[in-house]
């Protein structure tokens, strides 16, 4: 018996892309919690970066604004996340992963028949796995991008409100760009972690098992 060649990567990307484009609303549900978590992560860091920028400027007006806003600036050179903020961010990321796992499990079980059919047409386990990972990667990227946008805007707005318009003069652009990049990476990673178990379960399924499910 001959052996089937591997599906070209570009083809897998194409199939995955079409699949999420057509299932746009399903994808939205899956990524909703990711958008929020990434937005929150990004928001917290943006506010801190702006405060740090003001602190390091040494401008007395800026320092007064910081004190008025409740920052304790004695003897520090940068404003990092408070223990409470770290705790909240971690918690929101954790909740987000659980949310994604849940949403992806549902999405996968809605597609059992499709998975079984694809296997009958010659899809290898790893092809099914790759398709789900690619879909999650794309959803993760799009969701994180949106989350970062929301987080950046909310962070800048919140800094402007608590610190006054001085916060907007000389935004630490490099630091903000870095935060945006990091947040997107974290978002993609979370999306991939969230889909891992559902994708493995889908890929391992025998075609008959997958197609027996009433839908």
């Amino acid at each position, binding site marked *: *018996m001959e052996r*089937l060649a591997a599906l070209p990567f570009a083809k897998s990307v194409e199939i995955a892309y*079409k699949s999420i484009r057509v299932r746009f609303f399903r994808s939205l549900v899956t990524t909703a919690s990711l958008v929020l978590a990434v937005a929150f992560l990004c928001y917290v860091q943006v506010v801190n970066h702006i405060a740090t920028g003001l602190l390091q400027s040494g401008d007395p007006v800026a320092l007064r604004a910081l004190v008025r806003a409740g920052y304790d600036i004695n003897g520090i050179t940068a404003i990092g996340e408070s223990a409470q903020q770290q705790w909240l961010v971690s918690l929101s990321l954790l909740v987000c992963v659980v949310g994604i796992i849940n949403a992806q499990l549902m999405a996968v079980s809605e597609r059992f028949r499709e998975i079984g059919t694809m296997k009958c047409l010659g899809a290898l386990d790893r092809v099914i796995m790759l398709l789900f990972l690619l879909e999650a990667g794309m959803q993760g990227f799009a969701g994180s991008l949106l989350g970062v946008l929301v987080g950046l805007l909310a962070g800048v707005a919140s800094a402007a409100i608590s610190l006054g318009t001085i916060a907007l003069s000389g935004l630490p652009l490099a630091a903000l760009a870095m935060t945006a990049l990091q947040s997107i990476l974290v978002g993609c990673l979370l999306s991939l972690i969230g889909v891992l178990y559902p994708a493995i379960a889908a890929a391992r399924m*025998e*075609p*008959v098992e997958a197609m027996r499910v009433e839908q």
Partner: protein
Amino acid sequence: MNEHIIVRTTNVTKSFQLGRHELQVLKGISLKIAAGRYISIMGPSGSGKSTLFNMIGGLDKPTSGKVFIDEVDIAQLDAYELAWLRCRKIGYIFQTFNLIPVMTALENVTLPMIFAGTGNDEAMERGMELLRLVGLDQRHSHRPSELSGGQQQRVAVARALANNPAIILADEPTGNLDLKTGEEIIGLLKQMSSERGVTIISATHDFKMLNVSDEVIWIRDGRIDKIEQRDELNISMGTIE
């Protein structure tokens, strides 16, 4: 007979574990199917037709016994060989059509070609040709939800033919169709069998299938009840009427 035997099963049994009980669905099926024939597997609902279909198609493993496709024991195949068998050698048609809902008719038909490594242009061209063959080339950009049941099944027939398989396995292909569209699908299958020499193996309890079959394997309660050739069939049909 010096015909080419394309499917052979030897004493195939299949049991399912239901709680503490074991349900034996296939109780020793041995059959030989010659290449190019139109075979109907007939039997009442629950007699084990779909289970046998899954065994022959390499979609499930027998509890005991062996299935040979072209004299290769399919239990010995690795994942890549099994995928090749499912992709190139066998075309599947299901009662519930099983088209990929997010793909257009053309994309559904070309998917097995893509899996087989066929280039884009060639796949598109052959996909359109197959859609023309089943009379749906005008609907190539429609999704399954925009097609009627009969049209979906015709797309499924085109998809089953994508990689020029030697065997088409059909499990109750007319089960969800009305009389007229069911007859159209049967006609298409018969046409494939006579024009392309594809071996058709169809599980069914649709008596319309009898007219076109070269051979009918009657299954009852997990065993072969009788095997009738076309000429014998006409006689017994004649006596029924």
